[in-house]
C-alpha cells in the first residue's frame, strides 16, 4: 500500500488509493445517509446513535481525565499545595461521578453494543430505535446537569454520596449532582431494556442462543443488571434529596434514620454496577482473542454462562463494601464467602481465553495487544479484589489506596483497555478506514506501561496505610506518589495518541475491506462502513459462532 504516491489525483475506483476522500462503500454507507445536522440529531439508526455516544462519552472521558490530572499533580507533593482541601474533594468527586456514570457505564454498551449488537445478530436495528435515540438525549441532559454542577461550584461528597455527609452536611451541589445521576440512570435502563428485547426478538434465522457471539451474551448479562439494579440507585438518590431538601429522616440518625441503610442501598446497585462496567469489556475481549487467534473460543458455554453467573452472583456481594462499617460480623462472613464465589466465573473466562490461544494463529496486532493487556490487568485487579474480600486483611486496607489501585486495575486497566481495544478492532468497520498498525501497537504498549506505573505504586501506598481521598500525606510516601503521577502522565499521552492517528485515518487511512481482520461474525459480512439498513438481505446462519477453519490432519488447511 505504501507505494501509492500521495500527490496523484484520487482515483475513486482504486480502493487502495490513499488520497481517496470517499469510497463507493462509504458513499452507500450509513455515514453518508443524510448530511444535515438534523439527520444526525434525529437519527434512529443504531449506528449513528452509537457515534453520537462515541463522541459524548469520549468528551466526558476527557473531562474526568482533567480532574484526574489535577489530583495527580496535587499528589506530587505531601502538602496540599495545588488545591485547597475543598478543591481537592471537589476534584475527586467530579472525577468519580463523571468517570463512573458518564464514561464507564455507557462506554462500551452504548457505543459498541449499540453499533454491533444488531450487526452481530443479523438485525436491521435495535428493537426500539426511537427509544434508543431518547436514551442518548437523556444521557446528554444528565451530562449537562453534571457540567452545571461543575461550573456552579462542584460537589464534595465523593462519588459514593455517603450519608449523612451528603444529606445533611456537605455544602456543594449535592442535589444537582444526584439529579444528574438520577437522570442518566434512565438512559441506562432504556438501553438495557432495548438490548434485552433486541437479543430476544431480532435474531436472524438460524442465530440460535448457542450461536450468539460472546459479545452479545455479555451485553445481555449487562442489560439484565442495568434494568434490575439502576432503579435502586435512582430511588436512593431521591431519598438523599428528600432528606436534604425536606428533612425527611431516612439516613440521618438525628432524624431517626440509619446511615448504614444508605450504604446497603447504594452498594446493592454499585457492586453490580462494577459488572455493568466490566462485563461488556469481557465480551469485547472474547471477540478480540478469538479473532486474533483465528480460533473458536475454548469452552463457549462456560464463557457465555460465566457472564450470566457474574450478573446473578454479583447481586449478592454488596456487603463486602461494609466490612468495617459496623455491619454484623456474620453478615460480613457471608459476604466475604460470596465474594470468593463471584470470582470463579471470572477466573473461568481468563483461563478459557488463555486456552483459546493454544494452537491458534495469533496476529500481534493492536486488538490482540489490547486484549492481552486487558487480561493481564484484569487478572491482577481481580486477584487483589480477593485480597480485599479477606475480612481481616480488609480491616487494614479498606478505604486506602489499595482499594483505589484494585478498582482502577479493573475499571481502567480492564474496561478502558477494552474500550480502546474495541475502538481499534471495529474502527475499520465503523468508518471504513484502517489506521497505521504500528501506532495502535505503540498505544497499547504505552497504556500498559503507563498504567502499571500509575497504579502499582498505589498498592504499596495502600498497604503502607495511605487512606483514599487524602491529598496531604506523610513525606515518606512521596516517592510512590511521584512514581504514580509519572505513570499517569504517560497514560495521559497514550490516551491522546489515537486522536491523531484515528482521526487522520478517517481521511487518509487506506480503505478497509469488509473483513480486514479475517474475523468470523456477521458484522464482518457487510461492507465497511455498513449500509444504512445493515443487511441488504436478511442473513441466514447455519454455522456455529467463531466458525474458523480447523486444522485436523497434517496438510489440511489452517
Amino acid at each position: 500500500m505504501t507505494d501509492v504516491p500521495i500527490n496523484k489525483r484520487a482515483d475513486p475506483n482504486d480502493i487502495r488509493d490513499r488520497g481517496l476522500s470517499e469510497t463507493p462503500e462509504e458513499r452507500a454507507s450509513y455515514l453518508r445517509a443524510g448530511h444535515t445536522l438534523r439527520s444526525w440529531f434525529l437519527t434512529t439508526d443504531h449506528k449513528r446513535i452509537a457515534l453520537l455516544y462515541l463522541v459524548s462519552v469520549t468528551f466526558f472521558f476527557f473531562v474526568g481525565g482533567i480532574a484526574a490530572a489535577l489530583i495527580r499533580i496535587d499528589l506530587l507533593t505531601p502538602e496540599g499545595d495545588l488545591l485547597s482541601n475543598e478543591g481537592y474533594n471537589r476534584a475527586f468527586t467530579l472525577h468519580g461521578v463523571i468517570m463512573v456514570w458518564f464514561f464507564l457505564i455507557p462506554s462500551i454498551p452504548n457505543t459498541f453494543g449499540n453499533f454491533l449488537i444488531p450487526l452481530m445478530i443479523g438485525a436491521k436495528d435495535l428493537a426500539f430505535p426511537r427509544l434508543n435515540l431518547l436514551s442518548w438525549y437523556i444521557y446528554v441532559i444528565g451530562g449537562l446537569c453534571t457540567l452545571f454542577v461543575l461550573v456552579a461550584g462542584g460537589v464534595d461528597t465523593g462519588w459514593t454520596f455517603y450519608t449523612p455527609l451528603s444529606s445533611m452536611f456537605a455544602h456543594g451541589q449535592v442535589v444537582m449532582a444526584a439529579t444528574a445521576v438520577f437522570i442518566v440512570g434512565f438512559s441506562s435502563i432504556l438501553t438495557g431494556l432495548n438490548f434485552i428485547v433486541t437479543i430476544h426478538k431480532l435474531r436472524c434465522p438460524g442465530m440460535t442462543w448457542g450461536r450468539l457471539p460472546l459479545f452479545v451474551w455479555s451485553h445481555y448479562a449487562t442489560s439484565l443488571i442495568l434494568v434490575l439494579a439502576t432503579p435502586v440507585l435512582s430511588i436512593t438518590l431521591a431519598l438523599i434529596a428528600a432528606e436534604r431538601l425536606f428533612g425527611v429522616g431516612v439516613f440521618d440518625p438525628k432524624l431517626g434514620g440509619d446511615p448504614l441503610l444508605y450504604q446497603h442501598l447504594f452498594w446493592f446497585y454499585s457492586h453490580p454496577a462494577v459488572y455493568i462496567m466490566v462485563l461488556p469489556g469481557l465480551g469485547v475481549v472474547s471477540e478480540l482473542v478469538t479473532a486474533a487467534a483465528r480460533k473458536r473460543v475454548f469452552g463457549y458455554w462456560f464463557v457465555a454462562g460465566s457472564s450470566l453467573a457474574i450478573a446473578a452472583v454479583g447481586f449478592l456481594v454488596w456487603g463486602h463494601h461494609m466490612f468495617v462499617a459496623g455491619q454484623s460480623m456474620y453478615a460480613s462472613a457471608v459476604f466475604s464467602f460470596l465474594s470468593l464465589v463471584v470470582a470463579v466465573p471470572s477466573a473461568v473466562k481468563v483461563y478459557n481465553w488463555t486456552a483459546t490461544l493454544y494452537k491458534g494463529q495469533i496476529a500481534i496486532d493492536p486488538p490482540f495487544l489490547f486484549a492481552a493487556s486487558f487480561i493481564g490487568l484484569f487478572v491482577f485487579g481481580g486477584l487483589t479484589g480477593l485480597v480485599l474480600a479477606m475480612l481481616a486483611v480488609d480491616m487494614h486496607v479498606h478505604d486506602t489506596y489499595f482499594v483505589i489501585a484494585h478498582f482502577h486495575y479493573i475499571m481502567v486497566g480492564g474496561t478502558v483497555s477494552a474500550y480502546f481495544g474495541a475502538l481499534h478492532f471495529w474502527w475499520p468497520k465503523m468508518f471504513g478506514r484502517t489506521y497505521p498498525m504500528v501506532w495502535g501497537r505503540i498505544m497499547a504498549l504505552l497504556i500498559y506501561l503507563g498504567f502499571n506505573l500509575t497504579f502499582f505504586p498505589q498498592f504499596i501506598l495502600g498497604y503502607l496505610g495511605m487512606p483514599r481521598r487524602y491529598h496531604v500525606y506523610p513525606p515518606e510516601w512521596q516517592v510512590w506518589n511521584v512514581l504514580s503521577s509519572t505513570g499517569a502522565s504517560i497514560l495521559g499521552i497514550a490516551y491522546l495518541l489515537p486522536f491523531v492517528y484515528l482521526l487522520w485515518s478517517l481521511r487518509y487511512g487506506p480503505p478497509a475491506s469488509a473483513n480486514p481482520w479475517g474475523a468470523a461474525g456477521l458484522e464482518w459480512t457487510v461492507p465497511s462502513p455498513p449500509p444504512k439498513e445493515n443487511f441488504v438481505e436478511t442473513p441466514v446462519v447455519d454455522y456455529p459462532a467463531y466458525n474458523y477453519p480447523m486444522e485436523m490432519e497434517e496438510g489440511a488447511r489452517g
Partner: protein
Amino acid sequence: MSALPFWPHEASAYSAEIDHLALAFTVLIVLLSAPVFVLMIIFAVKYRRGRTADRRHPVNSRIGFEISWAVIPFAAMLVFYVWSTRLYFQQHHPPGNALEIQVVAKQWMWKFQHPGGQREINELHVPIGRPILLTLASQDVIHDLYVPALRLKQDVVPGRYTSLWFDADTVGVYRLQCSQFCGADHAVMGGYVHLLSPSDYARWLEQAGTDMSLASQGAALFRTRGCSGCHGAAATVKAPKLEGLFGHEVPLSDGSVVTADAQYIRDSILMPHAQVAAGYPDIMPTFQNVLAEDDVLKLVAYIKSLAAEPRSKP
C-alpha cells in the same frame, strides 16, 4: 524524600499475623496468575500467525479442565477464607479485662477520654501489653479510626457505638488517621497513637491527671443536667432508678425485652421515645441537642458504675 518505605510498622502480634496472611495470599495469587501470563506469552510466540507450528487437533472444550480450574483455585481460597475470618471474629470479641477508652469523632478531630477522666485531642496515650478497647462515637458524619501500625480500622458511625480493640506489644509513636471521607478537612483529620510501657503510661496519666474520673464527671452531669430530678432517690416523678440497670434486661412498653448496654443507655438519653421502659410514662425529654456525644459517654460511664447496686422494681 526519605528512604523508600516498603512495609508499615508492626506494633502488635496481630499486625504481624495480618502480614503473614497477606504475604501468603500474595504467593497464592502469583501461583494462580502465573500460568495465564506465562502461557499467553508462550502461545503468542509459538503460535504467532505465519509461523509454522503443530496446530493439529486444537481443543475447543474440555469440561474436566474447566471444572478443575474453577474448583481448585476456589478450594485454595477457602483455606485463606477460614484463616482471615477467624482473625476477623477474634477482632469482634474484645477480652473482658480490656482497658476501655471512649473516642468521639467530629468534623475534624478525635477526642479521647480515659476512665480516669483524662482527656486528649488527636493524641492517644495507651499502654502496651494489655488489651485496649475503644468505644467509638461520632458527633456528626461517618469517620473511621485507622491505625496502620495495628492493621486496624473501624468506621465511627453517628447514632451507634462501634468498637475496636487491640493488644499492642511495641512502644512507639504511630500514625492515626481518619479513613472514611468526612468532608472538607478529612485529609488532615489525624494524629498519633503513643504506645507506652505500663510505667510510662502510669506517669502520663498522673501528669495529665484530673481530679474526677469519667464516671464522676458523669455523676456531676447527671445532677447539673437535671437527670436526678426524675431519676434521683428523692424524685417525685415516676421514673426508673438507674442503679443496677447496666447489663440487665429491661422490659419495654411494647412487650419486647432488651439488654441495657451502652447503646441502649445512649438511645434512652438521646431518643427516649423510641424505647420506653415498661410501666413508666413516656415523659423523658430528649437530650439530642443538649448533650454532645462525649457527655453522653460520661453519663453512660456513670450509669455503668451503678451496675453493682441493687435494681429497683417499678
